[in-house]
C-alpha cells in the first residue's frame, strides 16, 4: 500500500514537472505593485512607466546590465565641433513594430514631442537649444553650454515613429483625455504589446525584426499588477506568477526557505536620508523651544547625525540588508566621492556634548515627518530613529503620512525634520546636487526638492561648473568639494542605501539593475 502511494506520487510529480516546464518555456508571468499608468513614453516620468516601456521603445542610448551607457538606436555620438552639443550617428536598418523604417526624422519628431509643454519628460531637454537633422542617419543636439552628461540624461528618451503618431492623432502626449498612444505602442524595442487591459493584464510578445540579439528565450510575457504584497507572495508561491518585486523584507526568509524559489538581493541607487528645515525661524512641533530653530545650528544637526545607530537600524528594522550611506549617492555611482566616504559615527555622548555647546543641554522636542508607504519599512525606520534621537535628549514627535499627502506638506514647509529617499535619475552625483543641495530657484528650475532650502553660495557656484566640466578628474574634485561642504554642514543625514529584493521561481534567470528597471530581454526561462 505504502509503496503504491509512493509510486503514484512519483508519477504525479513527473507529470507535473513536464507539464510545468512545457508551459514555462512559452510564457513568463511577472507581477509588479503598480501598473504602468500609460503606454505613452512621454506622458509620465515615473519609474513604473519608464521601466515597462523600455521593453517596447528604445532611446538613442540605453543602459547596460551595469548601468553603463551603451549604443542603442544611435551607434556612436561625439561632441559637436565649434559649438556645444552632441552629434548622434543613428543605426541603419532598424524598423518599428509596424514595419516603418527608423530615421533621423523620428528622432526629431520624438524630441519635439518629448520637449513639448504637454510632456512630463521635458526637463531632460532643458539644456537643448536646437536639434538639427544632418542627414537621414545623423542628428545634432545643440546645448546652451558644454554638457558632457547629456547622453546619460536621455537614456530613457524613447523614440516614436513620426508617421504612426501623426496618423493616429497622437503627435503630442495626452494631457487630459487619452489619445491613441495612451494604450497603443509602436516602438523599435525587443517586445511589442500584444494586448492591454489597464490595471488587470498586459501581454507582450517578442518583436521578430529587432536589430539586436541580446535577448533571453521569453516568447510571451504577461504583466499582472498585484498591489497587495501578501497576495503577490501567494501568487509566486503557488506558481501562478514567475517573478515578483518588491518582496517585503519580512517575507524574504519564507521565500528563500522553500524549494523551487530564489531571491535576488541588490542595492537600489536610492539613498534614504533625513532633511532639516534650514530656513525655518522656529520649530513647528516643539513643546519647549518655540522662539528658535535649533536645526539652523550645524552642531545640532551633527548631534542628530551622531545619535543615529545605523547598525541597529540595519539589524532591527532592515533585517541586515542595508549598507550605510555617507553622501547622497551610493558608492559605485559616477561622481561618488571616495574622499568623503565616512559618515558620523554613532556617538550619543558626543551628540549630547554638541547639544550642550549649542545651548540645549537638556535637549528639545521637535517634529519628525515621515512617509508610511513610500520606502521600505519607512515608518519602522522613523520610529527607531525617533527613539535614538530621544536617547540624546532630542524628543521627536513622529508624524507619518501616506506619500500622496507627503510632498504637499513638505512643499508647504510643514516639518521640522523629514524623511526623504533619492535616486539619482541620471545615475550621477550631479543629480542630487541639482535637486537637493542647490538653493531653491524656481526660475532656473534648481533645488526643486530641497524642501528645507539648504543654501550654500559655494555649492550654488560649483553646480554649473560640474555640469560643464569635461575633464573627469577636475569634475570629481569639484564634486568632492561639495560633498565635503555638505558633510561638514550636515545639510542632510544620509542613512543608508535602500535594498532591492526580487523573488522568482528557481528556473528563472534575470538581471537586476540598480535602477530597478525590469528588462524582459534579460529574462530566461530554463
Amino acid at each position: 500500500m505504502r509503496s503504491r502511494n509512493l509510486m503514484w506520487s512519483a508519477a504525479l510529480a513527473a507529470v507535473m514537472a513536464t507539464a510545468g516546464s512545457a508551459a514555462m518555456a512559452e510564457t513568463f508571468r511577472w507581477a509588479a505593485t503598480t501598473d504602468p499608468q500609460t503606454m505613452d513614453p512621454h506622458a509620465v516620468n515615473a519609474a513604473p512607466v519608464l521601466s515597462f516601456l523600455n521593453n517596447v521603445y528604445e532611446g538613442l542610448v540605453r543602459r547596460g546590465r551595469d548601468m553603463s551607457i551603451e549604443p542603442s538606436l544611435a551607434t556612436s555620438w561625439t561632441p559637436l565641433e565649434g559649438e556645444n552639443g552632441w552629434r548622434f550617428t543613428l543605426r541603419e536598418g532598424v524598423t518599428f513594430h509596424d514595419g516603418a523604417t527608423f530615421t533621423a526624422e523620428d528622432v526629431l519628431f520624438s524630441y519635439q514631442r518629448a520637449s513639448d509643454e504637454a510632456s512630463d519628460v521635458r526637463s531632460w531637454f532643458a539644456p537643448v537649444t536646437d536639434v538639427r537633422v544632418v542627414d537621414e542617419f545623423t542628428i545634432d543636439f545643440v546645448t546652451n553650454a558644454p554638457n558632457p552628461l547629456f547622453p546619460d540624461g536621455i537614456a530613457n528618451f524613447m523614440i516614436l515613429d513620426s508617421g504612426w503618431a501623426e496618423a493616429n492623432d497622437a503627435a503630442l502626449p495626452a494631457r487630459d483625455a487619452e489619445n491613441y498612444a495612451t494604450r497603443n505602442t509602436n516602438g523599435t524595442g525587443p517586445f511589442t504589446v500584444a494586448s492591454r487591459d489597464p490595471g488587470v493584464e498586459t501581454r507582450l510578445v517578442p518583436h521578430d525584426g529587432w536589430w539586436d540579439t541580446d535577448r533571453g528565450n521569453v516568447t510571451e510575457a504577461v504583466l499582472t499588477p498585484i498591489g497587495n504584497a501578501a497576495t503577490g507572495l501567494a501568487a509566486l508561491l503557488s506558481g501562478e506568477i514567475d517573478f515578483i518585486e518588491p518582496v517585503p523584507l519580512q517575507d524574504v526568509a519564507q521565500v528563500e526557505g522553500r524549494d523551487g524559489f530564489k531571491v535576488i538581493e541588490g542595492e537600489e541607487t536610492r539613498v534614504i536620508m533625513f532633511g532639516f528645515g534650514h530656513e525655518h525661524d522656529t520649530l513647528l512641533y516643539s513643546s519647549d523651544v518655540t522662539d528658535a530653530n535649533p536645526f539652523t545650528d550645524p552642531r545640532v544637526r551633527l548631534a542628530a547625525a551622531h545619535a543615529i545607530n545605523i547598525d541597529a537600524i540595519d539589524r532591527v528594522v532592515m533585517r541586515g540588508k542595508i549598507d550605510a550611506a555617507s553622501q547622497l549617492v551610493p558608492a559605485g555611482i559616477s561622481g561618488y566621492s571616495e574622499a568623503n566616504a565616512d559618515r558620523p559615527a554613532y556617538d550619543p555622548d558626543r551628540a549630547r556634548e554638541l547639544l550642550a555647546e549649542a545651548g540645549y543641554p537638556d535637549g528639545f522636542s521637535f517634529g519628525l515627518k515621515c512617509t508610511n508607504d513610500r520606502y521600505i519599512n519607512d515608518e519602522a525606520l522613523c520610529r527607531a530613529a525617533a527613539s535614538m534621537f530621544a536617547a540624546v535628549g532630542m524628543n521627536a514627535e513622529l508624524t507619518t503620512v501616506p506619500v500622496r499627502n507627503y510632498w504637499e506638506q513638505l512643499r508647504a514647509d510643514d516639518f521640522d525634520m523629514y524623511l526623504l529617499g533619492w535616486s539619482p535619475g541620471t545615475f550621477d552625483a550631479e543629480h542630487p546636487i541639482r535637486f537637493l543641495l542647490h538653493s531653491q530657484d524656481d526660475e532656473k528650475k534648481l533645488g526643486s526638492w530641497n524642501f528645507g532650502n539648504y543654501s550654500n553660495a559655494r555649492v550654488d557656484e560649483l553646480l554649473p561648473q560640474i555640469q560643464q566640466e569635461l575633464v573627469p578628474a577636475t569634475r570629481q574634485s569639484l564634486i568632492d568639494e561639495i560633498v565635503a561642504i555638505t558633510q561638514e554642514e550636515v545639510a542632510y543625514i544620509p542613512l543608508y542605501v535602500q535594498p532591492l529584493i526580487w523573488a522568482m521561481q528557481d528556473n528563472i534567470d534575470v538581471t537586476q539593475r540598480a535602477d530597478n528597471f525590469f528588462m524582459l530581454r534579460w529574462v530566461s526561462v530554463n
Partner: protein
Amino acid sequence: MVYFILKRLLQSVFVMLAVALLAFSLFRFVGDPVSQMTGVETSVEDRERLREELGLNDPFIAQFARFTGDMLQGDFGFSYRTRQPVAEMIADRIPATLELGTVALIISLIVGIPAGVYTALRPRGFITQTILMTTLVGVSIPTFVIGIMLIFLFGVQLGWLPTFGRGGTVEIGGWTSSLFTIDGWRALILPALTLGVYQLTLTMRLVRAEMMEVLRSDYIRFATARGIPYRRLHFRHALANTMIPVITIIGLQFGGVIAFSIVTESVFQWPGMGLLFLESIRFVDIPVMGVYLVVIAFFFVLVNLLVDMLYIAIDPRLRVKEAA
C-alpha cells in the same frame, strides 16, 4: 406603484448629489493629484501649469459645480492617472464586482438560511453550538485575514484554487463574465467566500433568532396542537413568517457587500470597482473617486428600492394598505 418608484428615483438624485458634495469636500484631504501625476524631475512651473489646467486652483464650490454639471450631462470626465474616460473605466469593472457580490450573497443564503433553521430547531445540540462558535470566529476575524488565510491554504498549500484574479472570462454583449468557465468559477470561490462570511453569519443568526421567536408564537403552538406535521409546520408556516425581516436586512446588506468589497477585491486582486477605487486613492485620481462614490450611492438607493418592492410582494398586509 409607478408613482412610488418615480418618487424614489427622484430622491436618489438628491442622495447622489449629497454624496458627491460630501466626497468632494473630503478629496482635499486625500492628497495632491499633481504630485502623483508628474515625475520628480518635473519643474515647479510645469506642475503649476498642470494644476491650473486641471482646475485644481479653483474654489471648492466651482470644482464641485463643474463635476456635477458635467455629470448631469453624462460627461464623467477623464482619469488623472490613466487619462482614460472614467465612465468606461468604471463600466469595465462593474461586472466583476456585481458577480462577486451576487455569488457571495447566494453562498450566504444557501448556507445561512438552512443553518439558521437548524440551529433554531435544535438550539442546544452539539452541532448547533459548533456552528455558532465557528461563525462567531469567522465574523470576528477581519476580512483581509480570512482572505489571506484562504489563499495560503487553498492556493499555496493545497494548490487547488488560484490565488488572484478572475481566471477565464467570457465576454457577452459587453459584460465580462467569469460565470461561464470552470477557471472563472475556480477563481471566484475564495473571494466570494471571503466576502460572504460576514453576510452568512448575519443571515444565520437572524434566521435563528426570528425562527425561535416565531416558534414560540401562539399560532405555531396551536398548529402543533392541531397535529400539523413538523416539516410542514417549520418550513411552510414558521419559515415564511421568519423571512420578512430577514429579507429586509439581507437586502440592505447587499448594498454594503457591493460597496465594501474593496478589501476582498484588494486581497484577491479582483479587478472590480473596489480595486479601481483603491488604486485611485493611491494616485489621488479625483474624477474616478468621485464617480465611484456616486455610482455606489446609486446602488444603495436602487437596492433599497428593490427591497421595498420585495417587501410589498411578500407581505400581503402592505399590499392592502397600499391599495387603501
